[in-house]
């Protein structure tokens, strides 16, 4: 019942659970990507090869991840669709009351930042996951030279600019998404919710910054 969201509450459960899953993936992915900056190209390639060695298991994880994406997007679109249905005639004058309102540019643009992120993910997967295969020998084993691919891509200034821009969107998405996912699952605490809410800014900024450093670093130094 919860998986196929029929109620408004269940839609948000699904969106929150998948959102948290994707958030964890993004955090892990950031740490993986930071291997690009170790100074030794083999570190990154070794890790990628290690993941590849899981074979079928990795495929399953990839499919799972894709399913999370789809469910996240699907539930978000349902919420968005309901929003339009629920107020077909909008206000001529509307503003937030301020005070304790959590309505921010971030919360208002979740659907748009989400669409940008979706487009980015598609480009990202095509470019890297299904990009050209450069072989390389590391520790006597032949593996894919993903490091070279990354360097090639991010030596194009346009790619760097786009990537950085998208990561700003990611930050915006997480600024509301981080605390909102917890609230959607019913995790409200008079003491901790304000911490999560304010902490969301730091988490979002840190993740966005972490991702932004990589292409710039690659462009400048590699």
């Amino acid at each position, binding site marked *: 019942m919860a998986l196929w969201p029929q109620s*408004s*509450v269940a839609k948000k459960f699904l969106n929150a659970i998948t959102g948290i899953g994707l958030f964890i993936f993004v955090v892990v992915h950031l740490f993986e990507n930071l291997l690009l900056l170790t100074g030794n190209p083999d570190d990154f390639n070794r890790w990628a090869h290690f993941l590849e060695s899981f074979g079928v298991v990795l495929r399953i994880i990839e499919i799972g991840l894709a399913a999370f994406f789809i469910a996240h997007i699907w539930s978000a679109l349902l919420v968005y669709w309901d929003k339009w249905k629920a*107020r077909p005639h909008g*206000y001529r004058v509307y*503003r937030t009351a301020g005070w304790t309102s959590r309505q921010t540019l971030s919360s208002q643009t979740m659907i748009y930042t989400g669409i940008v992120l979706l487009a980015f993910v598609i480009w990202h997967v095509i470019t890297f996951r299904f990009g050209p295969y450069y072989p390389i020998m590391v520790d006597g084993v032949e593996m894919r030279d993903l490091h070279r691919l990354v360097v090639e891509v991010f030596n194009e200034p346009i790619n760097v600019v786009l990537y950085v821009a998208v990561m700003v969107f990611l930050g915006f998405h997480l600024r509301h998404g981080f605390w909102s996912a917890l609230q*959607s*699952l019913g995790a409200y605490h008079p003491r901790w919710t304000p911490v999560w809410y304010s902490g969301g800014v730091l988490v979002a900024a840190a993740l966005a910054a972490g991702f932004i450093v990589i292409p710039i670093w690659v462009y400048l130094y590699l």
Partner: protein
Amino acid sequence: MTKKMTLHLRIWRQPNPHTPGRFVTYTIRDVSSDMSLLELLDVLNEELIKKGEPPVEFDSDCREGICGTCGFLVNGVAHGPKRGRTACQQYLRDFKDGETITLEPFRAKAFPVIKDLVVDRSALDRIMAAGGYISVNTGSAPDANSIPIPKEIAEQAFDAAACIGCGACVAACPNASASLFVSAKIAHLALLPQGQPERIRRVLRMVEQMDKEGFGDCSNHGECEAVCPKNISIKHIAIMRREYLRALWSL
């Protein structure tokens, strides 16, 4: 201190649900700053009637902020600028002399406009009918003190029960969600021992009815809390979700 003011009211005028509405601006001079916003509308209506123009229809009853009848957007904010108050408790002293005040009806598919600033909020009653009660027939109650309830719990239940059903939460919500209204009732009853037997049925039915009425989903903007005249916290929305999860779990 009392002073005289001139104010411009830009009001949504719509003769009936089927005719498109528009804003009309009126100027009222020399009114006392001690006057309430609704009294300003009374003054305007008297002028309009004398001039042979249709007066502005708006809902209002108790005029002391408890019945939940009044409500519209004042300069884009449900109920108006002063926090924790209904529209009838907004006073002119909180506006600037010469200011243009925009009044617009609550807008949501579930709250169709009837006329001018009057909307139909009966959807909220239907949600209440779906489970906003404890099933106890008259005469079957045990002695009131046979169920001790910790003071803290009673206070928390009260915080939720303070909802006046004005619909400002729906009006202010970017998604036109009724979650704050619905969750306040669910939380009120779920917190009390008397509300336990119907916990599961209540949350499932009330949420189902809320969706049926065509309200949007809650995206945690928290705007509802900021406009609620009774300062009801979105904590209750989280409680509703926990209640819902619990209900799903036990099915």
